[in-house]
């Protein structure tokens, strides 16, 4: 495990070295938050806001839901590039599996983002929302922990998308399809509890897309120990399930490695 820690450590440093990229992404995140918070503000002011969710909770929900997709590095792009260029082959003769090496690097960069987004975002979101969530600090901490697990799950899905390049030669449309599923079934723009009856939130919350966004961010509305335990148990299940699936998929990919040239 120690070698994976060092890969994550170096990636952490490398990620924080690229300040322009971090600043640009953070700026986009704040703009998106501002738009979403302003939109729900308008809905509540016009009297159409859901009575079951206070305005501040909805605003914090929107801010955290957007944050999930900004926390993880764009790992699928790196893997797609490795596969398309054949670079992936050159990592195979090292005593560390490519799959877990890239995941360690992704987690290293994720930690760098967590440091920035968690520390810097709170005052910004508070300033934009104009109040704390009704669940208080416990709710925020619960969401933070839930988002860490969600981000690791998101990294696993990104690796899957990246490795699909072996068959599709293009990971972007796979990743975009995955994102659209998250958008539809993950509770990004509308909390899962508000989903219409034909898309029952009670069923959707068991899907991996909800474990990525809707469930951990939904802890804002239910920051109880049982709620937190339920969300995290489901996340851990999906982490294990996708992790095992990914390992098997990776073995199939290894047979497809073709490196030309020279």
């Amino acid at each position, binding site marked *: 495990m120690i*070698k994976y820690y060092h890969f994550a450590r*170096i990636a952490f440093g490398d990620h924080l070295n690229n300040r322009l990229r971090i600043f640009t992404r953070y700026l986009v995140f704040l703009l998106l938050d501002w738009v979403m918070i302003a939109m729900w503000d308008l809905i509540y002011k016009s009297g159409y806001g859901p009575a079951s969710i206070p305005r501040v909770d909805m605003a914090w929900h929107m801010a955290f839901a957007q944050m999930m997709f900004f926390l993880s590095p764009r790992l699928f792009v790196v893997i797609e590039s490795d596969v398309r260029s054949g670079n992936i082959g*050159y990592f*195979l*003769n090292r*005593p560390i599996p490519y799959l877990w090496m890239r995941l360690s690097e992704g987690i290293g960069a994720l930690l760098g983002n967590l440091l920035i987004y968690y520390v810097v975002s709170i005052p910004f979101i508070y300033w934009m929302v104009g109040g704390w969530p009704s669940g208080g600090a416990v709710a925020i901490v619960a969401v933070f922990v839930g988002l860490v697990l969600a981000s690791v799950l998101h990294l696993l899905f990104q690796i899957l998308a990246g490795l699909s390049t072996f068959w599709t030669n293009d990971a972007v449309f796979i990743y975009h399809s995955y994102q659209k599923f998250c958008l539809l079934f993950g509770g990004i723009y509308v909390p899962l509890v508000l989903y219409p009856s034909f898309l029952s939130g009670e069923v959707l919350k068991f899907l991996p897309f909800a474990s990525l966004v809707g469930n951990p961010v939904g802890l804002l509305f239910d920051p109880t120990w049982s709620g937190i335990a339920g969300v995290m148990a489901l996340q851990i299940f999906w982490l294990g399930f996708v992790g095992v699936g990914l390992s098997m998929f990776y073995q199939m990919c290894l047979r497809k490695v073709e*490196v030309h*040239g*020279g």
Partner: protein
Amino acid sequence: MAQSVFVENLQKSFKVRKKSGFLKGLFSPEYTTVKAVDGVSFSLEEGERVAFVGPNGAGKSTTIKMLSGILHPDGGHVEIGGFVPWIDRKSMAYKIGTVFGQRSQLWYHLPAQDTFELLSYAYDMSRDDFKSRIKTLVDAFDAGHIVSKPVRQLSLGERMRCEIIASLLHRPKILFLDEPTVGLDVVSKGVIRDLVKKASDEDGTTVLLTSHDTGDMERVCDRVIVIDHGHLVADKPVRELRSGFIREKIITLAMKEEAIALDMNGVRLIEAMPHQLRVSVDTSQVSVEAVLQQAMKLSSLQDITVEDPPMEDIIKEIYAGSLL
């Protein structure tokens, strides 16, 4: 001496998709099979330095990629230090080092020393071992002033020195070098060749090197394996190749006189320009010394360059079969 590399009847083909119409390509694509390596067999003793040469597309890089565990072969048997590369990839990784001239194993935005440290963890080196090893290598490669610079700021020659340090860090028994001097200037090429040879001499590392450059072959290796169209064409000591295959020298003369006529057996005119003459000398018929003496008699020489013919020409001569 024990065998370090054993290759028997190695084969590898690639499927290349044929161009066809949109619908045909979608529902019934057709492929042609290109045999990149077709029944190659050879072996290397421990500590041997062997050049693996051939023209573009000959299959040398594909072979080295199969030997280093990057590619799965379609057939044949390979043992590298007792391991089958595509099966015992992880165990074999500790025994081999690889340098691919056109690929980098260094982190682009970070100093090379960070990559060295990372690799030392990947290869399970103890801290004391890593520190002493990196000191030895950095001193030997005179790289003290470059390892702390971000890799993106290094010249190609400096980067290549760091690449070789990275590949030697864990004391590999076998070093695979795929065109390590490609794109380098003459001075950097010389430095890299000397360093590889020195490292091999000191640690007894077996070296398998692919290159288009005869200098790499002559300055580093003791033996040459020639491959073409996936077949092994020749396997000779470098000395034999030099005296047997490289019978031709190219002489370029710069002189005060506008033109001279060098009519000698074994001398063929390549190019004549005012005050300059370029000839090919067949050393089996006439020595370079004799040609130069004759040239000095006929003119006031200002500059002389003696070169080996291009590698492609030597390879062509070997393929012709007249020298095998």
